[in-house]
């Protein structure tokens, strides 16, 4: 219990560090959108309704480089399709009327989802919703960009965060095998497919979970 509480506190601290990073990216999204000629209102509405950084950056840069509307929508759809498996993984945390579940589900983003993950398929609802709200405010609020987030190395912070949250989940052999396979699929597809596709394809590695469920359990 005390280690559970400690990891909860650690989660809250991590949320604050991530929120600072996210607000930086939110601000630079606004800046990029404005310089791409999209004005101020449309990017703001987009942040409030889409709330998914990578897809928003993709849309703005495609529209800004005279790419078509269809290409922009297609890129965003591919990038955000990962939220189908992600939202399935936390589906059991959501209760109540459908409309409420639909609204609360919008707080799912990579970072709030990852931080709330507790291993063994468990997720902390308080951390997911709390982190989601903090990150939403940070992303939409954004503020003024002080420069390129890449200059501060902030793009290197996200993979390290996901790695830190992955490592404790690798206790079991099946988890290790599935993570390895998922990572390998993503790596193999990255050079050949549009961004977003490798993550969705990697989800196939979860089918390793079928291997034992049909048979009686063994202790080996």
């Amino acid at each position, binding site marked *: 219990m005390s280690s559970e509480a400690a990891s909860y506190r650690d989660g809250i601290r991590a949320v604050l560090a991530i929120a600072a990073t996210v607000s930086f990216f939110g601000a630079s999204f606004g800046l990029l959108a404005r310089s791409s000629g999209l004005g101020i209102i449309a990017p703001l509405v987009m942040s409030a309704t*889409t709330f998914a950084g990578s897809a928003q950056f993709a849309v703005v840069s495609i529209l800004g480089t005279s790419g078509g*509307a269809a290409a922009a929508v297609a890129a965003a759809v591919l990038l955000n399709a990962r939220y189908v498996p992600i939202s399935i*993984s936390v*589906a059991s945390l959501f209760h109540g009327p459908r409309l409420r579940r639909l609204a609360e589900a919008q707080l799912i983003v990579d970072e709030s989802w990852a931080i709330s993950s507790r291993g063994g398929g468990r997720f902390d609802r308080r951390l997911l919703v709390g982190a989601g709200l903090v990150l939403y405010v940070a992303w939409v609020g954004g503020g003024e960009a002080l420069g390129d987030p890449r200059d501060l190395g902030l793009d*290197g912070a996200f993979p390290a965060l996901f790695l830190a949250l992955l490592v404790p989940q690798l206790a079991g052999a099946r988890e290790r095998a599935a993570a390895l396979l998922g990572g390998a699929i993503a790596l193999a597809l990255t*050079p050949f497919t549009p961004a977003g596709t490798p*993550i969705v394809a*990697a989800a196939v590695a979860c089918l390793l979970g079928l291997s034992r469920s049909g048979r009686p359990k063994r202790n080996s």
Partner: protein
Amino acid sequence: MTVWLVVSLVAVATIAFKAAGPVLLGGRSLPIGVRGVVVLLAPVLLAALVVTQTVGGDGRLVLDARLAGVGAGAAAIAARAPLPVVVIAAAAATALVRVVT
């Protein structure tokens, strides 16, 4: 006009993606066979996110300062550093390598 069309379509698609699990499956327990698969979603998707955020570009591999950031992050994780320290170490290493190279 085009901008608003794109903004609306992307919003509708994303809202639907995020709501898929909670709206269709929320508040009920899954069959045992499906559970075995869903339990693996977290490690698998986290591993895929680590890979794509480290070396991902649009349709190509990009090896850059992010690799150093993940390396520093991994060292901090191995030293059992708390999460915020891991994140800050990774950002610092990425920024440093980007300045130097």
